[in-house]
């Protein structure tokens, strides 16, 4: 245990950085340069701090660690309660890892309003890390929802031609899901008299109420994941967002949905989770197969990767709702791995986009000749996304399928077809962009990766291989918490919750 509030530091240091950037004045160019450096150093410091946290994190315990608790809003019983366990620790690390990469990726490609851009990213980092550290439902909700503000601005100000449409769709879709979750959180608060997550996990909820609450939570997390059929905001948001926005969106924001399932839906509402699990299997399978097929016909690189994200998230939800240790571990691992790989794939798209200003697949081709390093890097991430053994993508999918097989072999069979389809669309993308005839002259004249880009890709490459070869570094730290989650879930099923008084519900409401 550490003797300083590391989680608060992690969360609010970026905000401090943002405040500092805001005070920068002077020549526009100097301001832009200084803003970039401040953002980079702040995020690197946060990354170092996150590394230190990871090192001190005790993987043998499933309890919350680095806990901080301060009374904050006593008349509603809300406290500032932070803490992480094996489920959240890697999401914090992932957020801290991807932010400096995003800032580097935007170094030259963002030309207007650089200062505001960096402020938005710093604020975004605060909210992301806060979401994963919060142990109070209201605090969680504040961070979870606040993420929308910087992301809306990032898509809307620095995005592509249809950015306004995409930003609105992103914002309103997720907000609609979130407010339903807010209703559920308030109902939980009314029921258990607390907004404290550990307390809520420990207090059983009546079965009939569980179903309603589960649906409300599901509305929020399924949109955020996103699960088929509420995924349609994602391709739009991805296509229009600037490269770094896409990286963060795919890398971290989507994971908030999966994290929410693990933190709220399963431990707090076990009976409903069990009841709805079969429905979620089939929704996941639909996501995997349908969106893979959609990905096959995409002509836009970012859209293709966006659809592949939906398919990969289908694996995550499938794994989580197998409600077995393997499945949940697999889902968690898949989320972390997808965070790195899809982030990296969007960066790969960003590299060629910066040069040719188009994402159309058919405008490229044969670029392996002039961009060999790029082709190699891209291939590695492509294979990672396909799930080649030795890359991180393999471990997650394998564990998920293992968990699914234990629950229902038919489900596992259909899910496995997604692996084949995934290989099909990714290989096709790679073939059309990197190999094939070099028909476009401008594509053939593109420069290979410059050193800045290369530096940016190195940690991602290392991580994909490292996690693929030694998945234990993650799985060992998550195992205790996952086991605890599963035992909480099973204990929740055994407790025959008394049919206590039905909520004073809609029935009593006057209907006008």
């Amino acid at each position, binding site marked *: 245990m550490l003797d300083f509030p590391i989680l608060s530091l992690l969360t609010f240091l970026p905000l401090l950085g943002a405040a500092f950037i805001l005070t920068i004045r002077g020549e526009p160019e100097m301001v832009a340069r200084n803003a970039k450096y401040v953002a980079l150093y702040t995020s690197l410091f946060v990354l170092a701090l996150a590394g230190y946290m990871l090192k001190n994190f005790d993987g043998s315990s499933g309890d919350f660690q680095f806990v901080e608790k301060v009374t904050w*809003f006593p008349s*509603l019983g809300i406290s500032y309660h932070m803490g992480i366990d094996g489920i959240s620790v890697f999401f914090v690390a992932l957020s801290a890892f991807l932010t400096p990469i995003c800032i580097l990726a935007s170094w030259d490609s963002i030309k207007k309003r650089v200062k505001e851009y960096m402020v938005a990213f710093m604020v975004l980092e605060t909210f992301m890390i806060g979401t994963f550290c919060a142990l109070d439902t209201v605090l969680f909700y504040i961070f979870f929802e606040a993420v929308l*503000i910087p992301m809306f601005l990032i898509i809307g*100000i620095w995005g592509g031609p249809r950015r306004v449409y995409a930003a609105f769709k992103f914002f309103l879709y997720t907000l609609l899901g979130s407010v*339903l979750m807010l209703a559920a959180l*308030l109902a939980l608060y009314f029921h258990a008299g607390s907004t404290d997550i550990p307390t809520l996990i420990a207090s059983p909820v009546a079965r009939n109420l569980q179903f309603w609450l589960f649906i409300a939570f599901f509305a929020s997390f399924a949109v955020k994941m996103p699960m088929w059929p509420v995924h349609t905001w994602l391709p739009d948001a991805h296509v229009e967002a600037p490269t770094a926005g896409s990286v963060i969106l795919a890398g971290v924001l989507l994971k908030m949905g999966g994290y929410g399932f693990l933190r709220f839906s399963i431990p707090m509402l076990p009976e409903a989770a069990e009841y709805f699990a079969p429905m979620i299997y089939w929704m996941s399978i639909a996501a995997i197969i349908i969106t893979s097929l959609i990905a096959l016909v995409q002509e836009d690189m970012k859209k293709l990767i966006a659809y592949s994200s939906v398919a990969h998230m289908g694996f995550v939800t499938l794994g989580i709702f197998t409600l077995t240790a393997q499945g949940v571990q697999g889902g968690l691992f898949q989320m972390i791995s997808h965070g790195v790989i899809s982030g990296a794939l969007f960066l790969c798209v960003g590299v060629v986009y910066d040069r040719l200003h188009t994402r159309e697949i058919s405008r490229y081709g044969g670029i392996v000749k002039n961009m060999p390093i790029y082709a190699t890097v891209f291939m590695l991430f492509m294979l990672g996304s396909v799930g080649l053994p030795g890359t991180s993508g393999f471990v997650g999918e394998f564990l998920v399928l293992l968990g699914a097989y234990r629950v229902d072999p038919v489900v596992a069979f259909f899910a496995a077809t997604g692996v084949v389809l995934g290989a099909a669309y990714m290989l096709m993308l790679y073939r059309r962009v990197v190999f094939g005839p070099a028909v476009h002259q401008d594509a053939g004249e593109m420069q290979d990766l410059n050193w800045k880009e290369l530096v940016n890709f190195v940690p991602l490459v290392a991580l994909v291989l490292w996690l693929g070869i030694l998945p234990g570094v993650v799985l060992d730290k998550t195992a205790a918490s996952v086991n605890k989650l599963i035992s909480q879930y099973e204990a929740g099923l055994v407790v025959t919750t008394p049919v206590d008084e039905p909520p004073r519900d*809609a029935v009593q409401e006057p209907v006008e």
Partner: protein
Amino acid sequence: MTAAVWNWSEIIPALPEVFLAVSAMVLLVLGACQKNGGLKLIGTLSVAALAVAMVLTLKADWTPVTVFSGQFLSDGFSSYMKILVLGGLIATIMLSMRYLVQENMGRFEYPVLILLAGVGMMIMLSANSFLSLYVGLELQSLSLYVLAAIRRDDAKSSEAGLKYFVLGALASGMLLFGISLVYGYVGAVGFDAVADTLAAATAEGTVAPGAIIGMVFILVAIAFKVSAVPFHMWTPDVYEGAPTSVTALFAIVPKVAAIGLLMRLLFDPFVSLMPDWQQVVWFLSAASMAWGGFAGIVQGNIKRLFAYSSIGNIGFALVGIVAGTADGVAASILYMTIYMIMTAGTFGIIMMMRRNGVAVERITDLAGLSKTHPACAYAMTALMFSMSGIPPLAGFFGKLVVFQALIASGFYVLAVLGLVSSVVAAYYYLRIIKVMFFDEAEAPLDRESAPMRTLVLTLSIIFIAGFVLVPETLMHTSQEAAAVLLPAND
């Protein structure tokens, strides 16, 4: 007739009102003696008078005390609401001084009328009988009718004034009709007597339907004043037609007073009819939230937009009243406080919208504001996100507490309806941000400095951004105010 038992000490609880009324008279005479308007002097003195009244209210003894033969009541609830009203009036005058000069409306009657409206609102909030209630309400309304039409050579302003007056008179008529029904069936006009009689009748199950009908008429009249759907029709037209500074006043202050009055009525004389009025308020609240959300989407005029926004927000404030608990009332009070401060900031921006010396009020006139006036654009962005209820801004906490109270009382359907409406409303708040940040400006708005307005705007921003750090203070005060109203109700 026996000699009236008149004790001078009775005036002490009403000192703020008396002071304000006397100041208004003095300023009226003083203004009439000034050459060419004297707006600046009278305006400054009005702010000072309001500030003094605020201090008097703040320093007064907050223990409940009834004076003037039971007509006037001063307690923690009324004092808290009065402080809100006075604060709102001060903010409004500070916001509008420059606008009045620019628009050639620099007449000294303007601040004096605001003072008189303030006296009316304070009497409303302290009313302890239907008679004093009516007097207060009419004093307030008449001052506001004149203000709406103060630009008498402008057709739109005159139209707004007339519309407001006609519909307001209709509401007053309903109020009187309701009061007479209640008097007829209950036999009293004092709140305490009505409450006792109704409580006894409820216990015996012999509440006269006429009394309930009377209560509904009174509710309808107040619904007119707070512009709850379906009694909101005047709001968009009046907001659009009235001079912007008057619109700001309408949006910021009278609703706080009317909501306070509504709380007083529902939880004091009519508390034993709660199941009956809950149905009515449930509908008012649901309809206001939904209509305020949907109808705002198609608006192009920013003042009209904020008319619908205010309708929606009243719906959210009513949510806390539907809950029918002390927590609910506290939540509503907090909601109105936050709403008032956000609106003050928003109108600070709207009054800034001038191009080549002419006030503009299309939403599209804000295009490119983030390039030409970055500070204003950021302030407006914070305000709009706060209005849509996005954490960590203050607006979120307002919504959080009202819905928390609502769900604790078991109204799940209304909670979901309200939350979904808030998403619909978020669309038009976001559209303003979109216009400021994502669109290019055609011609920039004027640059001008109005220190008073900037001060109000700055305070508003500090409040909405800083509320997250100390949510407890204000919540605690609201709870204390609510506890006065519902001492043993939970």
